[in-house]
């Protein structure tokens, strides 16, 4: 439906709170790591989907990163940003063909992306999707 609730859950989780008002009022909300891609040109058949980093085999963000801040974890396959090394130059933003690495310009001033919330039982975007449109599957097994 393109409701974008996943984006709110993602940003809240990144802000480290589940209180929406608190997140908005105390801090600015960080950038969501998931985005809605939609094509509304054909009014009868609109196309919309939520999309986040697909953890590429050979990630262009890793290859383009000027500082070596991004790497692909060989065990989990997740592409991870080292926040201490990221200088917010946004070269990765320009390199990602899916536009799934985001410039968190107002809060952390670092690039952010979906790192699959492996520390949580279920990623907040999945848990919070009202339509069960988002699912999480582990391909490694």
């Amino acid at each position, binding site marked *: 439906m393109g409701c974008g609730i996943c984006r709110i859950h993602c940003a809240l989780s990144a802000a480290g709170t589940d209180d929406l008002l608190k997140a908005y009022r105390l801090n600015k909300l960080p950038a969501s790591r998931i985005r809605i891609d939609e094509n509304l040109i054909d009014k009868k058949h609109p196309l919309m989907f939520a999309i986040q980093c697909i953890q590429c085999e050979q990630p262009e963000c890793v290859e383009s990163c000027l500082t070596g801040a991004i790497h692909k974890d060989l065990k989990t396959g997740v592409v991870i940003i080292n926040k201490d090394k990221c200088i917010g130059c*946004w070269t990765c933003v320009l390199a990602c063909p899916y536009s799934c690495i985001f410039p968190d310009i107002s809060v952390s001033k670092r690039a952010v992306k979906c790192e699959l919330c492996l520390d949580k039982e279920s990623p907040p975007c999945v848990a919070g999707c009202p339509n069960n449109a988002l699912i999480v599957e582990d391909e490694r097994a």
Partner: protein
Amino acid sequence: MKIVILGNSAAAVGAIEEIRRKGSSDEIEIYSAEPYLVYSKPMLAHVLSGEFGIHNIGYRDENFYKTFDVKLNLSLPAISLDVSGKKLHFVNGASTDYDRLLISTGAHPLDMQIPNLSADNKFYLTTIGETLDIAKGAADISDAVVIGAGFIGLNVAEALVRLDKKVVVVELADRILPSSLDHRASEILREKLEAEGVSFRLSNKIVSADEVDGKLRSVLLEDEEELPCGLIGVCIGVKPNCDFARVAGIIVNRGIIVNERMQTSAPDVYAAGDVAEGPHILIEENRLVPNWPNAYRQGKVAGANMIGSDLIFDGGIEMNSYNFANIPINSIGFTAQVYDGAEEYFTLDYKKGNYRKIVVKDGKLIGALVVGDISKTGMIGWLIKTKIDISSYINEILNLEYGLSFLPKEVLNERIIRY
């Protein structure tokens, strides 16, 4: 098989990581002219400004060479190459044989001769050594002049301003970042940089310097303005380190000529990175594309082909991401000038500092320049590389309403939807 790599930067890392990723256990030796483990050159400005120390700008961690089983030789520049005997000679008299050689020796800053200016008062920012020099030179001065308003020049200027120096940038062109920005983008950024304290003298140049007992006091501009300054940053571009390759008989134009497999004209000799003049995505001729992502990608292609795996370089492309004065700017492809047969479309909100321009030729995107909301530039840049016809979606792209959902179904299915 023994693979020898000359140079220890982005292209070398691209080659090493690809060679090992493909499972090759071939012997790899790397020779660097510098005394440091691989570091991020784009972070040098952050060293100059004091945000990072030289030990915190490693491009890979210190275990990189061990993890990837690479024999590292530092402070050992090559002086000559025998391509028929497959032998390299080094400055200390040592030599080594190779089965495959990758030349990724990078580039050095172009120099500029100015009357009455000694070399001691000229500084650069392309290596750790040069960065330490300029930091030392800046310690007891209050005014600095930077020649060149390109990426490195603005980096130096911004870093010196953060050190509370008064900085004037002198640029021959009529705008800042002239090789990637047009006048509109350039003006937006110039105002923000001026608000930060960087001054500019555009369409201007230095004609002479005033030194007393080796101490720089001022420079004189072409329009007769005198600028007080204690040091000069020379940031007018870089030149490939390819003289020894030329002497060895390898075909060199402005850089070492390579094909889409990064092969040079000499058997088993490859080149990648700022030293290489390789194929381009948008034009037929080879071209120098001295940017970091291009160096890594070329190194990766060279690495694959050196171990007999067939990987084709899809071509270099100008791509720049700037974050000067906290203004995000992305440019990719041909964005700085008006190109023959191409049409420009743009949207500008000068007050908000938002500007987007796309350059279209024969229905295909050949350039994109975005100031402000850069969140979708990756997808837009990808359209340049894939050469998909976007003529019906120009407004959607300009208004940032374009997405992957506009792609032809078969492309979308292949790229995105895997289930």
